[in-house]
């Protein structure tokens, strides 16, 4: 199966292009956009970890190491497409246009954080594992029924492939030929459980065979492989070619969440080693240096701009008025039921000294 689903690399670890057919498509403009988003997502993630440490946001799920998967795939989307993320995919949602302020609100325990910017079809992060796959199949099928050229992308981890919803989502999309890309980030761990204990199959891509859909395996730390393969899959979807399962092989450097201690189950030296060799940002830098496109001053400018953007978002979030308990009651139904109305009334009466 590893022969049937070889790991596609467009660029090697040294930043040399392995697939000359892509050479022309790798424009300076594309490279600069990729680099900028990689830096932006990494800086935001690190900032979130430090905000959590200071108690300014709640438990947080970092994605450092997986930026090429998230940036490369999100850049391949078109404006009208759908994006279904997990809790670890705000690198993708921010690249696709989610606001940093809203992402931060989510991690501050506010449901405003689930609301995408106007016109953006970004679903709230799925917390129950794999539940978002059937949604993406359905949303994509709806686009097909409506006769649009829009597609959907859905993110999930290696652990998610063990849930029934993974299989049900793929099968539904296959049967109804839905324009959806199932984007797996195989970071090789589901919390503490390594992929070798999660499944006996050597690849995740091969699971596509069971549903007779396209399956590809790519180096998820190679932003060109991610970008071009996702673009190809999205084009296929738009043109009636049905769903694709993409397995992007990657690695999370840090903890599963800020509540997790990875040294309980793995040697963190491995993360250090990977930072040296396969880091998605360093790899792109190596390529840029070879091309003579790496300009220190430009990089510094990006970092300054991103720092300012993040600081601005944090400032805005910290000025958001406190959570209003009325929100808890007001959005359960279009029209509140009498039970909710009574409870809301009793709650506010209690605040004024009554019973609840």
């Amino acid at each position, binding site marked *: 199966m590893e022969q049937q689903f070889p790991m596609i690399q467009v660029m090697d670890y040294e930043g040399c292009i392995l697939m000359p057919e892509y050479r022309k498509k790798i424009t300076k403009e594309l490279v600069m956009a990729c680099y900028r988003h990689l830096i932006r997502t990494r800086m935001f993630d690190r900032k979130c970890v430090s905000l959590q440490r200071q108690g300014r946001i709640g*438990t947080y799920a970092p994605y450092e190491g997986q930026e090429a998967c998230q940036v490369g795939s999100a850049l391949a989307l078109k404006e009208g497409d759908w994006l279904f993320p997990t809790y670890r995919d705000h690198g993708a949602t921010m690249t696709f246009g989610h606001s940093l302020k809203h992402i931060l609100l989510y991690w501050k*325990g506010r449901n405003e954080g689930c609301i995408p910017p106007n016109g953006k079809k970004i679903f709230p992060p799925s917390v129950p594992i794999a539940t978002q796959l059937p949604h993406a199949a359905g949303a994509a099928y709806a686009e097909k029924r409506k006769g649009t050229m829009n597609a959907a992308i859905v993110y999930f981890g290696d652990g998610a492939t063990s*849930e*029934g919803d993974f299989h049900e989502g793929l099968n539904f999309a296959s049967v109804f030929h839905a324009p959806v890309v199932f984007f797996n980030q195989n970071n090789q761990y589901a919390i503490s459980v390594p992929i070798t204990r999660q499944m006996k199959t050597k690849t995740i891509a091969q699971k596509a065979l069971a549903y007779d859909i396209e399956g590809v395996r790519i180096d998820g730390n190679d932003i060109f492989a991610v970008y071009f393969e996702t673009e190809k899959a999205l084009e296929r979807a738009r043109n009636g070619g049905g769903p694709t399962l993409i397995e992007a092989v990657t690695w999370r450097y840090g903890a599963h969440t800020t509540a997790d201690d990875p040294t*309980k189950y793995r040697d963190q030296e491995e993360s250090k080693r990977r930072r040296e060799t396969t880091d998605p940002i360093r790899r792109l830098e190596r390529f840029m240096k070879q091309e003579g496109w790496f300009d220190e001053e430009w990089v510094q400018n990006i970092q300054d701009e991103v720092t300012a953007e993040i600081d601005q978002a944090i400032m805005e979030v910290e000025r958001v008025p*406190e959570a209003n308990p009325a929100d*808890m009651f007001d959005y359960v139904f279009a029209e509140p039921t009498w039970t909710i109305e009574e409870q809301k009334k009793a709650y506010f009466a209690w605040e004024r000294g009554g019973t609840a």
Partner: protein
Amino acid sequence: MGTGWYSMTTAVNTKTLTLVQAVNDALRTMLHEREDVILLGEDIGQNGGVFRATDGLQAEFGEERVIDTPLSEAGFTGAAIGMAVNGFRPVVEIQFLGFIYPAYEQIMTHAARIRSRTKGHFTVPMVIRAPYGAGVRAPEIHSDSTEALFIHMPGIKVVCPSTPYDAKGLLIAAIEDPDPVLFLEPMRCYRAFREEVPEGKYTIEIGKGKKLREGDDVTVIAWGAMVPVAVKAAEEAEKKGIHADVIDLRTLYPLDKDMIAESVQKTGRTVIVQEAHSTGGLANDIIAIINDTSFLYQKAPVERVSGFDTPVPFFAYEDDYLPTPERVLRAIDKVIQF
């Protein structure tokens, strides 16, 4: 500590443990005690569980008895049913109660009814452990308290301790029970305090509540994470000269009908504290018991202090959602002043 509501068999020395350590101690005790006990769940082996409830157990008992499963609640719960009908006593861990739903079908349509479908030919002596509840600033879906979904389910017992001592004795009883037991662990109490816990094996009878305070004026009934809230309110009431009987139910199905009736017949006034949503909640069944056993003794309508009929909110709102001692105290005042 009273006697009579538990039975000690081999216990002698004690250790000072938190609730989560008491769970660990119960599991270790039973893995030692019985060859047929086997643990399954996500991240329970090498990692020792995300709350460390199974810490050290895989190292001690091996990978064949403490099994890290694939990420599949339906899979490992269904497999545990298969093992239970075939000679094992599986104890599965659902990482958070809010993630039990993929396993719901296995529990509802199989674990809970195989005995009755086969007139006892096949039985499912398994335990499903699940941390539950809000109040720890966890991400969304991690804070559900949906005990009512399982209390309503015929064929499974539901247990919910609030102290380390009870957690160990009840978990051992659950493992020894011939039928499936859902064992709910209040996350908020996991490390809230320590208590003397006997070493070795002892059991607490499933179906028996515990009286935490004696008083003649009002009965306050709670379970799990709401027990400390109820106790705090009772202490405040005491300062005003109101003496409360406080009951920790400990088992949610079947309820300790006798203890409830005895108390409410004495006080005639009742406050029930429930973290879960109001509609369809366990508090309503307690009111039914009061109605059936003690209607003529009542001096005031029963007050419920509950979560609302809303999804458990994101953590920025959870302090508004959760019953507090202040809300309970006001309900006590209301039934007293009625």
